[in-house]
């Protein structure tokens, strides 16, 4: 327990206000249960997700810079983002503003015209919800607070693309023991194991779910997701734990689509890691929004005494 992340700014992003609301709710509930304070960024804007960069990457940098400057103005040194897309874009902006003169110029110019303070690299640290709990509470701290152990629930931990790639925007990763790995991430595994889960050896932790083209190239996405689902089942997983609303919704949508369009039914359930942690901390399934997921895991959880 470092105390560093006890009180941080919170950037939910658009997805957590829409399809990912269960992630928003469970993140807040888990924070409350762990005694961690989060304060939402005032009047934040969209980070541009996977789309604005295709119009122009420098605009994406500006969008994130505006959010970081709000955190700074609110007096925060750390902003926590649970969504991989938001997290990635804030990190990318931080990197580009530190290393690329042109990105700095565009951000300064747009900030000036938009009438707010520009953001300078190094003022605010961006962390993921995983860093937040792992660094602040840690496995031991979590173990001490578990009221309702996940009791050997078999979990495949799925991190997706944006949490680890490209590696140069995550300078704190791959720094030896204790740090997160970009090739074999383990923070979510560590936390869920502390909550009593049995993590299966899942080889596709950082494979792609096709989230960027989930609607515009649905067949590709369905193929990629089906591969993730069947591999998780082959590894013996009951549940795929997610830490990104785009991945999560992609897995749920294309699980349904694979069944309807390709006739391939899979039964592995999909839950946010914060929902799993919340239930282990003694919160009800309802409180962490399990019924709001498309993937219906109620029977499984009831069977395991978690519901």
């Amino acid at each position, binding site marked *: 327990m470092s105390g560093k992340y006890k009180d941080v700014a919170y950037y939910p992003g*658009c*997805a957590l*206000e*829409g399809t990912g*609301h269960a992630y928003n709710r469970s993140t807040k509930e888990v924070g409350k249960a762990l005694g961690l304070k989060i304060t939402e960024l005032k*009047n*934040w*804007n*969209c980070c*541009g*997700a*996977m*789309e*604005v*960069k*295709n*119009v*122009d*990457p*420098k*605009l994406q940098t*500006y969008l994130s810079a505006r959010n970081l400057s709000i955190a700074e103005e609110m007096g925060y040194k750390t902003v926590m983002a649970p969504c991989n897309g938001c997290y990635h874009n804030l990190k990318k902006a931080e990197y580009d503003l530190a290393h690329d003169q042109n990105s700095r110029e*565009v951000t300064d*110019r*747009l900030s000036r*015209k*938009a*009438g707010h303070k520009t953001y300078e690299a190094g003022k605010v640290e961006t962390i993921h919800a995983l860093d937040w709990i792992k660094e602040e509470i840690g496995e031991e701290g979590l173990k001490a607070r578990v009221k309702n152990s996940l009791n050997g629930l078999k979990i495949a931990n799925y991190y997706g*693309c*944006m949490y*680890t*790639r*490209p*590696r140069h925007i995550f300078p704190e990763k791959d720094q030896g023991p204790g740090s997160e790995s*970009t090739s074999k991430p383990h923070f979510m595994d560590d936390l869920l194991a502390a909550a009593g889960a049995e993590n299966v050896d899942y080889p596709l932790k950082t*494979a*792609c779910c*096709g*989230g*960027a*083209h989930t*609607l*515009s*190239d649905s067949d*590709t*996405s369905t*193929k*990629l997701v089906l591969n993730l689902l069947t591999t998780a089942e082959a590894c013996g997983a009951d549940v795929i734990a997610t830490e990104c609303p785009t991945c999560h919704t992609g897995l*749920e*949508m294309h699980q*349904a*689509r694979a*069944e*309807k*369009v390709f006739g391939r039914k899979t039964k592995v359930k999909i839950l946010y890691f914060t929902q799993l942690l919340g239930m282990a901390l003694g919160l009800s399934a309802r409180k962490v929004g399990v*019924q*709001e997921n*498309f993937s*219906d895991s*109620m029977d499984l959880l009831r069977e395991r005494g978690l519901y």
Partner: protein
Amino acid sequence: MPIHEKSLIRPENLVTHEHLEIEGVDVSGHWSTFINTRAVSDYNEQMQEEIAALPGGEYIHRCWQCGSCTNACTVNAINPDFNPRYWIYLIRMGYESELLRDKDIIWQCVSCNKCTYACPRDVFPEGVMKATAHWLELKGHTEKKPSMVFDETFSEQVFATGKIEDGRVLREFFARTKQSLFQDWLIAMVRSLLMRLPVTLMMKLGLATVFHPRTRGWSKAQAAIDEYVHEREAAARKALRLDVQGAE
């Protein structure tokens, strides 16, 4: 990991004669196989420069053709014709007509950044894929691909209001690409959810579609972004030697 190479011999250029005798020697079937000469005469010497002028394409000149990008690529694993290493080669050599053979799959890059992670030369191949897809569209080689329609639908909403509402993006995207919103699998999914959701939450979600979320005081940011976008568009058209109106 297999090495993903690309054969430059196309099946249609392999010629065999079922019955052929040359100077009394029977060379029927594969004994008579020969390869039609493949000559490229229409080099586009500007191609690399043009793609480098578009966002994402800046570092294409660094590529040393190691193939790590293709080896790591998510889409290549599904479709072997999707080959970033090979396309970068074609662009750098100026083989425009060869590149055009793959013009309808280049947009399928899912931005997983496995290539960027693997690339030893910091080419940022993911960006090169996006720049190449834009180049194909700007040059009039392809129509707007679905992913580009999606990018635009999404970005326009961000630029206009500062935020997006995912239901609205979905509806607009389906409308712009002339697809029905009532896809079987979507209906099945929503139906199973409606059975379980509490009424209050459904009302809240319903309201979000009526009162669009927006960032307060966004209009100045919107104006600044719009101005920048127009500037960049004009610069791109100039780099590609297209006039500003859109006609070539």
